[in-house]
């Protein structure tokens, strides 16, 4: 287009295309550029070596531009930073083009294609043309090759269309027609600014491209403000105008883009921050919910050792408000004995940032409880110490159970020891008695047959067997009662007959003990009862009376009223102290000194259970040293027998109960 000296045109798009190609695909593509430039110039009539040299110029221009952009700018093809724009304008558009212009024009002059006098003008035209190519064509290609990122709504399209129409319209009135004033093209800035602000770099370069096309076209056909008698003159002015326009567009759009990006980043940051805050709030709410719903008591303290949080469980337990507990307020509830030790443990652990475990009693709204407190240091995600968090578990029940368990184990061991003694003693006696009989039968007894009365031995043996079987029966009764399998067979019974029977059976024993048994029985005391168990009650009470009150009379009374029958056994023996009376009916309890009195300590417990099972009552009145009275009151018509033998919690689930 009106090439100066035939080769230097004022618009040289290939420069832009070459630059784009190398930017996109790398500098390795340079032979292609050289080849293309060589062919074009050859075709335009340059000699081979001139065309080759111009090709070298073109190639070097593009290669230098790319290398400089990469080295000094860290160029982004998106032109979204001011740095990219300024770098592109200075290195690619202004600087690299001088290389091409110089090499090309020098080659032309040396090749005598143009005379040396035209060197300056040709160089300038060449340079300006290349600048135009780099500034208008290259950004256009680079930007529009990438996919569109704008939100493609109907409104965007409408706006883009309006912008296009507006630009074309202003372009037409700026450049169309003859004798147009130079001021008209200034009207092109508003659409350009619009494009920059609303459509960024893509809008900017497209607008500039549109304007340039129109401007060059009209100028070329001799219209518009830049039209001149000499086309090259007009075009050079136009070029300068377009350079300003396009640089303005690129700079403005990059600033807008950058601003937009910064803005967007800020918006995102704010949103992220909001989300984080919401997350923190949510996690805090979740923590409080969990802490409040937890059955354990939770506290939190700060770096100042003061407590600053208590969960609802804690506050409910203490029956105090949050404010009252705050700081060291909670410590008012500590048991005075535990106070110092507790605060000391806390303080020492705190200073060394160690976990701690401590037991203490904390006052509840209705009394003291024992707690196991476990505290752990808290740290922020970045590792800074934030205080302590602790949880307290109520170990009061556990302590009670442990104590009860230890007691039970003690009682059991004691019982086993006593039981072992009580069972081994009759066995020993039986063994010796049988040994005697054996020696007598086998005639290796020396004078045993003369010295020993066999019937006495046999009587003793029988008595030991009775003693032994009573122990076994007692133990079976205990296991049956605890298993809830105690059976009662009710029938109409004459109480007096059973009492008399038991007394008869103990005649010899009472004689041995030196006790006179006095019976006082109401007339015809009858009622429904279990014969065997009633016998057991009377036997146990009478045996006890004989055991603990030897040498003194024993009084047995049977009385009655309309609803119940009463039985009392009174001795004048050692008696029972009032503190022992409380535990008298407990299992395995023996209060009499063991060396003096035998027994498993089960008798009264069994009696008590039977009486309860029959719906009756047993009471004891006693004074140490003066004797005891055991009174049993039994209903004539017991009803709720089953319920009176609750199964012990240790019994099997499958046992049958009456």
């Amino acid at each position, binding site marked *: 287009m009106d090439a100066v000296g035939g080769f230097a045109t004022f618009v040289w798009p290939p420069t832009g295309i070459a630059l784009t190609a190398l930017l996109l695909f790398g500098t390795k593509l340079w032979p292609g550029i050289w080849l293309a430039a060589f062919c074009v110039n050859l075709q335009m009539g340059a000699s081979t070596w001139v065309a080759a040299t111009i090709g070298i110029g073109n190639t070097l221009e593009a290669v230098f531009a790319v290398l400089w952009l990469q080295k000094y700018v860290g160029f982004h093809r998106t032109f979204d930073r001011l740095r990219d724009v300024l770098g592109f304008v200075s290195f690619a558009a202004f600087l690299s083009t001088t290389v091409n212009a110089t090499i090309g024009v020098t080659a032309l002059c040396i090749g005598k294609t143009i005379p040396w006098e035209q060197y300056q003008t040709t160089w300038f035209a060449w340079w300006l043309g290349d600048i135009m190519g780099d500034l208008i064509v290259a950004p256009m290609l680079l930007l529009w090759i990438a996919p569109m990122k704008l939100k493609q709504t109907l409104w965007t399209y409408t706006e883009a269309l309006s912008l296009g129409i507006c630009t074309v319209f202003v372009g037409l009135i700026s450049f169309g027609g003859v004798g147009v004033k130079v001021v008209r093209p200034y009207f092109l800035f508003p659409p350009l600014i619009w494009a920059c602000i609303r459509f960024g770099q893509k809008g900017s370069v497209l607008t500039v491209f549109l304007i340039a096309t129109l401007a060059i076209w009209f100028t070329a056909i001799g219209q518009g403000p830049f039209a001149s008698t000499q086309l090259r003159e007009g075009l050079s002015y136009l070029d300068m105008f377009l350079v300003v326009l396009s640089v303005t567009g690129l700079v403005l759009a990059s600033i807008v883009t950058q601003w937009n990006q910064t803005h967007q980043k800020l918006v995102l940051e704010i949103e992220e921050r909001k989300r984080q805050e919401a997350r923190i709030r949510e996690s805090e709410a979740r923590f409080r919910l969990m802490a409040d719903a937890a059955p354990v008591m939770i506290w939190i303290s700060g770096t100042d050792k003061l407590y600053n949080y208590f969960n609802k469980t804690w506050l409910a337990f203490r029956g105090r408000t949050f404010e009252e507990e705050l700081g060291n307020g909670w410590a008012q509830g500590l048991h005075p004995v535990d106070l110092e030790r507790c605060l000391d443990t806390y303080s020492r652990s705190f200073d060394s940032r160690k976990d701690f475990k401590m037991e203490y009693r904390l006052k509840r709204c209705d009394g003291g409880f024992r707690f196991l407190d476990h505290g752990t240091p808290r740290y922020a995600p970045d590792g800074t110490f934030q205080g302590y968090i602790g949880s307290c578990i109520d170990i009061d029940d556990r302590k009670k159970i442990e104590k009860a368990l230890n007691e039970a184990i003690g009682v059991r061991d004691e019982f086993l020891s006593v039981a*072992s*003694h009580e069972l081994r*003693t009759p066995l020993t006696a039986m063994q*010796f*008695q049988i040994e005697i009989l054996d020696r007598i039968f086998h005639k290796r007894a*020396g004078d045993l047959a003369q010295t*020993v009365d066999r019937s*006495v031995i046999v009587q003793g043996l029988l008595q030991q067997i009775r003693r032994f079987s009573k122990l076994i029966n007692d133990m079976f009764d205990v296991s049956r009662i605890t298993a809830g399998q105690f059976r009662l067979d009710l029938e109409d019974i004459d109480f007096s007959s059973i009492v008399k029977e038991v007394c008869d059976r103990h005649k010899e024993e009472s004689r041995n003990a030196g006790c006179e048994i006095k019976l006082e029985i109401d007339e015809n005391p009858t009622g429904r009862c279990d014969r065997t168990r009633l016998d057991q009650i009377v036997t146990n009470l009478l045996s006890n009376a004989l055991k603990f009150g030897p040498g003194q009379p024993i009084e047995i009374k049977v009385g009655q009223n309309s609803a119940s029958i009463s039985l009392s056994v009174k001795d004048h023996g050692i008696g029972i102290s009032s503190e022992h009376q409380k535990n008298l009916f407990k299992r395995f309890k023996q209060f009499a000194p063991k*060396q*003096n009195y035998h027994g498993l300590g089960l008798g009264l417990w069994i009696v008590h259970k039977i009486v309860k099972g029959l719906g009756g009552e047993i009471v004891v009145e006693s004074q140490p040293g003066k004797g005891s009275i055991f009174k049993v009151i039994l209903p004539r018509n017991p009803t709720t027998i089953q319920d009176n033998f609750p199964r012990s919690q240790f019994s099997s689930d499958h046992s049958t109960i009456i």
Partner: protein
Amino acid sequence: MDYTIVENSFFMASSAEPSESSAVGQEAFYLAEPIRILIAEDDKDIRYSLTALFDSIGYQVTEAQDGCEFLDQLAPFILATANDSPPDVILTDVRMPGFDVLNIIEGLRQMGWRIPIFVFSAFADSAMYQRVKQVGVTKFFHKPLDFDQLEQAVRLVTWNAQRD
């Protein structure tokens, strides 16, 4: 379940000569002076049977039915008011009413009595074992016990004692 007090010289001597002990026959036994034995036991039947059994094989038996009687039987010898020497062997239950038998035995040992003392008990707790070991009992028997075993042990120590 025998419990042997190792430090006791009587039992050590006997266990060192098992062949001799088995050679001791009943006849040889009868040739000696009747051996006097004190039996203390609170269970009437056990005491009666033991007395009868030992009596029938030639022992001279004295009985005690509790701790008090046990001490009463030994008192003349302890106070040195008796004319003759104390019993050759003592057999006693551990737990009896009255005085604590183990305390009495401890006292006897402290006085330098070296007579064989056999104890038996139906209790078996470790505290009692400790105490039995401590006071210097010749041999401990667990109830129920075999009479032959008891007799053999008694015969062994008395034979050894007589030989001395």
